[in-house]
């Protein structure tokens, strides 16, 4: 896929991946072998009928391709951009065994963008069935569930704690990876379907689940995993140490990179981002756009980076240094408690564990100091406990909501997405939202 020129990316939050034009899409679609037993579909968490939509592109019927994708996926323009396709559909593509897999994500995005541009995104709802559902959280899981239920004739209200709807799609994933206009269009499509959004409404604080139960027939908790983890190392509270969440929220949600925004962003000249996931890459690349020197410090090696492949490539292109096999053990500070560096240890890989991932251990006596004036911790997130305050919904010892399917311990309450699984992907959260909608319908709620 064509990309925004490397030089143009610094100082700009414009989207990096430029997408296919018609010709490129046709060329790529023509490479699809139209397997009789398509493995790619099995690699997709929501089982998009991939060969079928690709065939429609080839037939010049992009509208039909959109209908096919939309049947399985509520947010194709988002998934086409942020799904880790190389680990999902594309990893199973027969073409990939000898050469390049079909760029399924890029084709999905092409179709979804065509639909947005030509306003094909409107959905039709069945006649209202008189039932009301409240959804907690307006991230991918909540939006998907809202869309599915609204289509079935439910009256749906989505409660969002922040002042903008979209959850992680607006506060977390940066503009250069997922333009906010796209999220807005998806949300507008839901509004057109009759879904109501209540912003500035942190459930658990302004209302409890028990309050909602009095007004609604069912509740779906899709509150995500929003709490940042820290390492617990010495001086981690020093000035200049931030969570990736804070950095990303200031930049994405509050628009710190825009001229007219009042929310400041603290910037060092020599920044270290600790971690290796998508959030770490997003934070590093966002900060790099302010023209600062940025290093991504990761305790394993490039091969183990959990981030989406394309993001790692773009990150390296943008001049961010990857420091492998390195882990902070202490934040170094000056007398005013400002960050002046990190004491780090070298790491080494060990055998693969049960999950097939290489383990890692510290090398004794390998301590050294790494100069920096800002540190961003991107070590994962845990579920936000707010929404279940004063409710009987059962959680495990990690704070994850316990479900059977999507049913919680409370008959009227369903849950899914990161609040149930811990930090995962947009597509899995969407899948849970869809499943919850189905279970709400099936249970005749």
């Amino acid at each position: 896929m064509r990309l925004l020129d490397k030089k143009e990316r610094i100082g700009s939050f414009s989207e990096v991946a430029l997408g296919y034009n018609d010709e490129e899409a046709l060329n790529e679609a023509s490479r699809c072998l139209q397997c009789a037993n398509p493995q790619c579909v099995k690699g997709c968490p929501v089982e998009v009928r991939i060969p079928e939509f690709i065939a429609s592109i080839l037939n010049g019927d992009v509208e039909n391709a959109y209908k096919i994708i939309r049947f399985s996926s509520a947010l194709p323009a988002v998934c086409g951009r942020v799904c880790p396709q190389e680990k999902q559909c594309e990893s199973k593509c027969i073409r990939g065994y000898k050469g390049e897999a079909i760029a399924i994500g890029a084709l999905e995005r092409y179709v979804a963008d065509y639909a947005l541009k030509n306003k094909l995104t409107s959905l039709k709802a069945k006649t209202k069935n008189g039932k009301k559902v409240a959804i907690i959280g307006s991230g991918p899981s909540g939006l998907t569930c809202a869309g599915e239920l609204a289509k079935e004739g439910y009256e749906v209200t989505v409660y969002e704690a922040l002042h903008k709807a979209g959850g992680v799609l607006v506060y977390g994933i940066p503009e250069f990876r997922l333009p906010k206009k796209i999220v807005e269009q998806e949300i507008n499509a839901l509004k057109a379907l009759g879904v109501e959004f209540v912003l500035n409404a942190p459930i658990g604080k302004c209302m409890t689940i028990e309050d909602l139960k009095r007004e609604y027939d069912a509740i779906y908790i899709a509150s995500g995993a929003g709490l940042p983890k820290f390492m617990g190392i010495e001086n981690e509270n020093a000035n200049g140490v931030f969570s990736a969440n804070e950095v990303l929220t200031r930049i994405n949600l509050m628009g710190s990179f825009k001229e007219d925004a009042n929310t400041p962003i603290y910037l060092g000249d020599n920044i270290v981002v600790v971690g290796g996931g998508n959030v770490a890459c997003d934070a590093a690349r966002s900060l790099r756009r302010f023209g600062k020197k940025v290093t991504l410090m990761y305790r394993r090696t490039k091969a183990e980076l959990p981030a989406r492949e394309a993001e790692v490539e773009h990150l390296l292109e943008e001049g961010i240094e990857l420091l492998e096999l390195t882990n902070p053990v202490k934040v170094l500070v000056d007398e005013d408690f400002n960050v002046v560096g990190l004491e780090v240890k070298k790491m080494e890989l060990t055998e693969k564990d049960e999950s097939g991932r290489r383990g890692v251990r510290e090398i004794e006596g390998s301590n050294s100091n790494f100069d920096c004036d800002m540190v961003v911790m991107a070590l994962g997130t845990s579920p936000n406990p707010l929404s279940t305050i004063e409710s009987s919904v059962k959680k495990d010892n990690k704070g994850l909501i316990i479900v059977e399917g999507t049913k919680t311990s409370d008959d009227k309450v369903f849950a899914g997405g990161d609040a149930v699984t811990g930090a995962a992907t947009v597509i899995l959260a969407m899948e849970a939202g869809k499943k919850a909608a189905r279970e709400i319908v099936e249970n005749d709620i």
Partner: protein
Amino acid sequence: MYKILKNELIGENIFELDVYAPLVVNKCLPGQFVIVMAYETSERIPLTIYDYDKSTGILKMIYQVVGASTKELVDLDDEIYSVVGPLGNPSELVMNIDEWKEKKVIFVAGGVGIAPVYPQIKYLKEHNVKVDCIYGVKNEKYLILEEKMKNICDNFYIATDDGSKGYHGLVTDCLKSLDKHYDKCVAIGPVVMMKYVSMLTKDLNIPTIVSMNPIMVDGTGMCGACRLIVDGNVKFACVDGPEFDGHKVDFDAAIKRMNIYKTFEGRKYLERCEGSMHHGNCGNCGDK
């Protein structure tokens, strides 16, 4: 958008902002706070709740103008973009009101710290708890809510730095001079004040609650900007607090965190970042 019913000067650079926000007011209890945004492009800043009326849905806040974000509030006329809450946990005293019926409580408020103190004392008085309050300000121009406080406190003491009204000196000296028995102390104000009050009450053996108010973004535990060290553990003021045991808060770490004000970048950052919480008399920021 939220309808503004009042946005008026009530003291030196101090304003009262009343808005119609039934979703905040319905569940609101003393000790909680809100986060507001003047416009869509504004920062999210924490404000203290000074009063609320469940029958009308009206929420009353008090803020002191300290920087760009609070200045933006002053210019608001009819509407404010966003008001979210009630955030944080309600006051420990309010939640365990029955335990305090026969006890005596002293509140120590510094500056606009009087605003969150008011609804707490009001609530305690409604439940027949004996409450005294020391209210410290730089000089009498900064006094707000004076009459209201007099009416709800058993004893209300004013302390001014310059002696322009009431006790001439610091709230800690004023508290010492009272030489009275108290079962609990609640201190709300600048961090340095809360630190010294807590040191004093430790000597005096009075269990003490402080209300911490560091910089926040979302106020729901997401950003981690408001982290503090309490009893050796990292806590988030927004979801674990804002109240903490004053004898367990690492004030020096909190004050050091405020040293961000001292660096050039930090000053630039905070010029636009401070909430109404920062009133320039913390002794660390170099203001005033």
